Structure formats: structure tokens, C-alpha cells
């Protein structure tokens, strides 16, 4: 319990936990989905499950961009990188994600030019410093990350830098939520809405979930207290028979989002008719592609991309886990063939993936604030 001293207001945590117990009807089993992988990580890390009554269950959602990327896209990106002029640049999170013939990191070990960048702007710098090479930025992420990629493409255009392109795998969160709600084996009571995605898109895009589907949504921060307060707000709505979108994370998320970011995205990207999500299958209008006006900076419009489709290893049940139908440990491979060191499925790669979080924190007791706070 060494972290407890640093923790803000443990008494408020205890209060929120009590309030959750008070609000939850004992006869109902609540299933609440946290959409964002950052929340999933925090929930495991802080052992928040221990602060909830057994009839309030958190279902881990699809909001981990590394986890939902189909293997074929990695194969496509690495296949182009076999050309000697290519440099494959991506965030560190991507480096250990397995493709059919290994991860980007393993491809690097086999001699491909694979570089970690921490910003798309740095991939652009790499292009500037290597004028005889072609730098392909392998872009992943939801709306938190997509605006930065968009601005980078705008900068490439205004500089007239042509040895740079983006292999765009940006996805959008709303269609994924719709796919989950449409899935017949899924019953959910409400959503803890993503925090940082919402700094960009704001809260309005969730309104249909409340209005049409009758499910409350609370956009939440990442601290333990934020997440517990969001659950309190959800349960309060459910108790009152309400369904609306509320913003718990007002200190960072403006209701209308970030207009400059939305403008950059709208300028550079359009929706793909459909895109494959690992575990969820094809979802219509769920991903971004680069507009024709910026074809010069689009790897897919500029080069012949093989368009590989790979079925996931049959034994891995990533799809069921991703949809919340199975718990990570219920997958046949969990902790045996599939571990964070040797991941088979992508949910085991990123710390935001529910399998990796479960593996890391379920065995070794996390920082449990539950131990420190009497509930």
C-alpha cells in the first residue's frame, strides 16, 4: 500500500464505493462497459473491482488501438518495408504486435529499417533527414491520435516533402460502440465514456447511445476516484430511469471537443466504407482514410499494398474477450501459449489490452487501494 499516501482523498474513494453499493439494486446484475483501454488499465492497476459490489461488473471494451488492428495490416506494412528505400516508422506500442511473419521488431532484427517514433512529427523529420529514402508512418489510434497525423500530413504538404507517407489505420470509436450494442450476445447497462478521445470529439457524438439505445454514458477521467464517480453517476441515472450523456471529466473534456483538431481531421480524412477490426470483424464507416487531395502522402494510394487478410489463430478467442463475452482468463490460450512476453493475440501486447492487464495484475495483487481504504 505504498501508493496510498500519494493518493488523493482516500476518504472520497471510500465514499464513492459506499455510494455505489447503496445505488446498486441487489436484484440486478449491472454490466458497465469502459470503452477506453486507458480505463481498462487503470481499473486493473488500482484493483477497482475490489471496491465494487459483485453485482456491478465492468466489461472491458474495444478502445485499445493496438488490440483491434487486424494482423493483415501489419503484414501489409512490413511487406512494403522489404523494399530497401523504405523506413517503417511507428509508435513503440506497435513494435511487438505479431504479424504472420513476426512483429515489426522481429522484422528489424531480420534487417528491415524499422524505427520507433514518439510523434508523427518525428516521422516527418526522419523523412527530412533521409531524402533518398521513403518514410512510411504506420499510423494507429482513435480520435486522440488521428488529429496529430492529420496535421503532420498538412505539414508534409506545405513543406512539399514527398518521401513521406502515412499507412493509415486510424479508427473511430462510435461505430465500434454501435457494433457492440448490435451484437446479439451482449447486454450492457451503460458506458464509461473515453476520456482523451472525448477531448477531441466532445460529448455530443455519444448522445444517440442515450437517446436511441436508452443507455447512459459518463465520460470519465483516469484516476480511481474519477472512474468510481463515473460509476456512481451511471448507477444514479439507472436508478432514476434516465439515460443521458454526462461529463465527469470536465476539467479536461469540453462538451464540444477540440474544434481545431476536428477541422484538421475533416480536412485530411474521410470515412472508409468499412474496415476490419480484429475480433469484431468488418464494421462499416469505422475507420479513416486519407482524402484524394492528399493521395501523395497516403501509402495505400501511392504504392501497391498487398491487402493481406489473415484469420486469427483459431484457438485464440480475442473477439469474444474484446466484446466482453469472455473474460481474459477464460480464453484457452490465456497465460499458457499467450503471455505478454510471447503474445498470440494483440490483447496481450499493449498495457491497455484487457488480457495483458489481467495477466499483469490479476496474479500479482495490484496497488489495491481497497486494502488501504476501509469499505
Amino acid at each position, binding site marked *: 500500500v505504498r501508493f496510498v499516501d500519494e493518493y488523493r482523498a482516500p476518504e472520497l474513494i471510500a465514499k464513492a464505493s459506499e455510494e455505489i453499493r447503496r445505488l446498486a439494486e441487489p436484484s440486478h446484475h449491472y454490466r458497465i462497459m469502459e470503452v477506453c483501454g486507458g480505463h481498462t488499465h487503470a481499473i486493473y*492497476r*488500482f484493483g477497482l473491482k475490489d471496491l465494487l459490489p459483485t453485482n456491478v461488473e465492468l466489461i472491458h471494451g474495444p478502445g485499445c488501438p493496438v488490440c483491434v488492428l487486424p494482423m493483415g495490416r501489419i503484414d501489409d506494412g512490413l511487406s512494403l518495408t522489404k523494399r530497401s528505400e523504405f523506413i517503417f516508422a511507428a509508435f513503440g506500442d506497435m513494435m511487438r504486435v505479431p504479424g504472420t511473419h513476426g512483429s515489426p521488431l522481429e522484422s528489424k532484427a531480420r534487417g528491415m529499417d524499422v*524505427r*520507433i517514433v514518439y510523434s508523427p512529427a518525428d516521422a516527418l523529420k526522419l523523412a527530412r533527414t533521409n531524402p533518398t529514402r521513403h518514410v512510411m508512418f504506420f499510423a494507429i489510434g482513435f480520435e486522440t491520435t488521428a488529429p496529430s497525423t492529420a496535421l503532420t500530413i498538412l505539414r508534409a504538404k506545405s513543406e512539399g516533402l514527398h518521401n513521406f507517407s502515412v499507412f493509415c489505420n486510424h479508427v473511430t470509436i462510435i461505430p465500434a460502440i454501435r457494433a457492440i450494442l448490435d451484437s446479439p450476445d451482449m447486454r450492457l447497462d451503460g458506458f464509461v465514456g473515453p476520456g482523451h478521445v472525448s477531448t477531441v470529439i466532445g460529448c455530443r457524438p455519444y448522445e444517440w447511445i442515450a437517446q436511441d439505445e436508452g443507455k447512459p454514458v459518463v465520460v470519465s477521467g483516469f*484516476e480511481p476516484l474519477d472512474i468510481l464517480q463515473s460509476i456512481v453517476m451511471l448507477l444514479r441515472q439507472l436508478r432514476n430511469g434516465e439515460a443521458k450523456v454526462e461529463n465527469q471529466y470536465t476539467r479536461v473534456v469540453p462538451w464540444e471537443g477540440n474544434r481545431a483538431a476536428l477541422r484538421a481531421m475533416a480536412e485530411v480524412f474521410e470515412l472508409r466504407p468499412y474496415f476490419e477490426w480484429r475480433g469484431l470483424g468488418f464494421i462499416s464507416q469505422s475507420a479513416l482514410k486519407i482524402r484524394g487531395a492528399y493521395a501523395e502522402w497516403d501509402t495505400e494510394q501511392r504504392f501497391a499494398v498487398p491487402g493481406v487478410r489473415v484469420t486469427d489463430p483459431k484457438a485464440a478467442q480475442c473477439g469474444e474477450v474484446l466484446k466482453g463475452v469472455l473474460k481474459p482468463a477464460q480464453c484457452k490460450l490465456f497465460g499458457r501459449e499467450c503471455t505478454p512476453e510471447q503474445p498470440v493475440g494483440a490483447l496481450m501486447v499493449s498495457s491497455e489490452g484487457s488480457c495483458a492487464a489481467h495477466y499483469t495484475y490479476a496474479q500479482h495483487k495490484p496497488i489495491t487501494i481497497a486494502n488501504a481504504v476501509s469499505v
Partner: protein
Amino acid sequence: VCLEIPGKIVELDASNPQLAVVDVVGVRRKVDLGLLAEESVRPNDWVLIHVGFAMSKISEADAAEQMRTLVMLGEGEAAIQEVRGYGLYELGGNEEEGGTA
């Protein structure tokens, strides 16, 4: 990918108004201000940074809280590593440095 890192604006780049130097617990790097085009950003303002771009202006207290959350999440070092990594490929920089995984 979801990390947002709090930093303090130290100075705006005189030659390029789109850039500013931020300080993240002592590490100083340039970040892009293009996504805050609708807000005025000045030295001593606090921002949340994501993949090298300032995403939101926040209060100093919220910045401190965000850093504490990152540390509690076990992401404090990853955040500093990310900030250190910004600008690896500046002209004249050590290009090879970024190649190591």
C-alpha cells in the same frame, strides 16, 4: 497510445509559431501547438501533450494531478521516455538514437 502528458509551456518558438518548448518534469522538448489553434497559448500555460502535440490547456493543479495519475498507473517513466523521444530526428541530431527499440 492513450497517454496524455502534462507539460508547462516554457517559450514559443520565435521562428515557427506552431511550435513551443515545453517542460515535463525537467525534460524540455518542442511540441506542436497546431491543435490549439483556437486558443491563445502563452509561456507558463499548462497543456496536455499527446504524441508530440499539445491537445488541451489545463490548470496547473490538474497538470499535477495528471502527472500523479500517470505515475500511479506505472506510466510515469514511459511518459518521460516519450517526451525525451520527441525530436529525435531533428537535422543534425543523432539519427541512430531513435533506431533502438
